[in-house]
């Protein structure tokens, strides 16, 4: 591979005019220092100079990641609201007829299958990450781009299917947990803590179900979509969502197991 010589940065003197509103352009008066995502051979190839949509394979990916970041931020606020209601309800009570303050929080003992479910979900995160990383492996990228088969898609599809299986196992395990509780006559409306057990686990399960739908969609895209960038975005976004749901589950599990 030929060495690439990068010319040293030329330091421009700062304009001494203090009243000038800083425009973040380092004094050149034109554009800020965009990072150079060159195609390979130094100048003249700067993707930053191209119109939007042609800034290189990472452009769409970073757009999707930022969108997912904001969406998950909002989603986490949803769970933050539920968890803060949890803590308020835990310390709330009522005045009985004798004007005594009664806090009648009865912790719900959670079924032990939840430990297994947590383990399954953590393993599924590992397999999902393996799928995600395989989408970006340079050697295989080159092969796929040239047209020498689809090693990326095959490997990623394998890992994604494993994740799908494990995720479905998790959901089945949650269903078993709900059945077990129902067999002990602990329903949603039984008492304050059971409200939260069902509320938190059901809303998380709904989010995970959406994650499973995203996994299915990603698998379909791996099979059918022609653009590599789109496939990368689909798998990357799905897996990041899956990781966040996994971390969220760990928090919810710790909350339900230890903090009631």
């Amino acid at each position, binding site marked *: 591979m030929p060495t690439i010589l990068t010319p040293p940065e030329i330091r421009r003197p700062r304009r001494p005019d203090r009243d000038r509103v800083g425009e973040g352009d380092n004094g050149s008066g*034109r554009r800020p220092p965009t990072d150079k995502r060159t195609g390979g051979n130094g100048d003249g190839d700067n993707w930053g100079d191209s119109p939007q949509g042609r800034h290189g394979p990472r452009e769409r990916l970073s757009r999707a990641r930022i969108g997912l970041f904001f969406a998950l931020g909002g989603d986490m606020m949803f769970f933050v609201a539920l968890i803060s209601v949890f803590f*308020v309800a835990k310390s*709330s009570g009522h005045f009985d007829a004798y004007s005594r303050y009664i806090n009648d929080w009865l912790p719900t003992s959670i079924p032990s299958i939840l430990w297994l479910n947590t383990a399954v979900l953590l393993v599924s995160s590992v397999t999902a990450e393996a799928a995600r990383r395989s989408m970006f492996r340079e050697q295989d990228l080159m092969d796929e781009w040239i047209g020498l088969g689809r090693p990326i898609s095959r490997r990623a599809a394998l890992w994604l299917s494993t994740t799908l299986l494990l995720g479905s196992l998790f959901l089945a395990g949650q269903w078993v947990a709900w059945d077990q509780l129902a067999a002990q006559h602990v329903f*949603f*409306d039984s008492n304050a803590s059971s409200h939260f057990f069902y509320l938190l686990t059901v809303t998380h399960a709904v989010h995970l179900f959406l994650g499973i739908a995203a996994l299915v969609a990603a698998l379909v895209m791996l099979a059918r979509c022609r653009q590599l960038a789109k496939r990368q975005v689909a798998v990357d976004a799905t897996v990041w969502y899956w990781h966040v749901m996994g971390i969220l589950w760990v928090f919810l599990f710790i909350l339900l197991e230890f903090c009631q």
Partner: protein
Amino acid sequence: MSAPSQNLGAPSSRGFIALKWARIGKVARAIVSTHHRNIGFGYLTISTIAVILGTLLSWAMRVHLSWPDWQLPLHGPILPEEYLALVTMHGTLMLFFVLTVAPQSGFGNLILPAQLGARRMAFPRLNAIAMWTTAGALVVLLVAFFVPQGAPISGWTAYPPLSASALAGPGEGLGQDLWLFSLALFCIGGTISAVNLLTTIVKLRCDGMTWPRVPLTVWGWLTAALLSVMAFSVLLAALLLLFCDRHLGSSFFLPRGDFINSVLLPHRGSGSPLLWLHLFWFFGHPEVYIAILPGMGLTSMVIGNFAHRRVFAYRLMIVTTLLIGFLGILVWGHHMFVAGMNPFAGTAFAAASMAIAIPATAKVLSWIATAWRSRPSLTTPMLFALGFVSLFIAGGLTGPILAQPILDEYLHNTFFVVAHFHLIMAMAGIFGLYCATYYWFPLLAHGRILSERLGKWHFWLTLILAYTTFLPMYLGGLAGEPRHYSRLTGLNAPAQALLGSTQMIQLHITGAGIALGLAQLLFFINLILTLRSPRRAGPNPWFATTMEWAPHTFDEPTEPSKDLPALATFRGPCHYSEDGASFLPQWEPPPQQPASEGE
């Protein structure tokens, strides 16, 4: 498929049919389009329907309050619960579907990409999904009018236990459920739209569009979108919990021993209605800042544009926008001073609420300083921007009054509060929307400008009638007049003695309010007349400097494979010469190339 461009003699029937299908195809394509321009117009359509309906509801409310025995045509007399249903739906429609949708999603979709030099939004398909979700939310909300027992009566704030049990009043059954469902859809649509906006602003700025060069309107949209993403999720959680209380036997908001309509509610567990207030207002206060922040950003830019001046203290304006957004998250308790909250918490919220007055004052000072002795051209958009400033001051300066708990003890839930938020949200917010419409009309309507003469009449009538309608409400509130009363006459003796003196004020407000609504017809007449008789203005009739006025921003590529020329920004906005006679827009390359370019 293209329509025939020349008429070469008598059109054949086949030609007519082809033309008709071409037209329908165009409309159908616009409806399912993922282009941000069509989506923006879709949002504005939602808002227009909502604002017309909301205004009609408010007329019915006002007339009933002034003449309680008046019969609504085709309906009969308005019952007390129907009055409360009008109040609830008026508030919900106006706050959500007009003041959150139009400035943020409506004009944001139409103008934001162009102001950033982008040609598209980050997620066009998600954008379309969000718009249709919001449209669905509006439909679901309106269905609540037609179900048995009608629309909910608990106000747009829906405090439980009134909103948590169908026993508490008419409309609290299916009507309240539909309201919940509608708002849940709205939250989802609003969050998706905000995520789209945020990603566009972060990732799709054109070359040279550094953060200090981003127009203040975009900073307003950015802050409002950040608040949206955070606040709507909390509302969604609260709606879910209320739904569980209503139908699944939980007790998040229902206390033990709640005895409604001779029925002891059967739930187990002890919740607190105050919890709903905390959750709701944690959403509700950022919500009103979402409604006003884009308008504030636009006002700065429009005043700078027509005063032909740089915006005074531009960086400070960016900071104040973000600060108002941030502080807006910390002040929700000022709606709850007398609601049963700890009085120490009241003091803390009071301090935070007074603190918000500082960045708001900074903004007002900047607006005045930008326009100070600038000999601005008083076009209709500039007039509406100045009207925004005026109404914002008149409504906003009563904010610190309400932020003092001891004074709120007297003024809470009186017409004083109604005047405060109507002057800021209804009037200043709407003025921001009118300013946007008049200002960007040449861009959106292919070079047509709305008539200046009609526009000025519209502005002056609206401004004067707005003050005539809402300033007397302050006096009514100071007299002790409470909100949400379906009648203020025919009450028993001591209440009648207290409130009787305000009857004149109420009649006056009704008259002015109806006139205010009618004055908006001038705008619609202006709109229709202008759309029908094209007056082609130049490409940049206001001599604006922001990127949306650059040539070729709204061009569509003639062939799908061809790229459009890249847009680039070379400086901040509002570069005008000292005498205001010449200007340097953001998209113009610098006048001389620097000698050494070493890149």
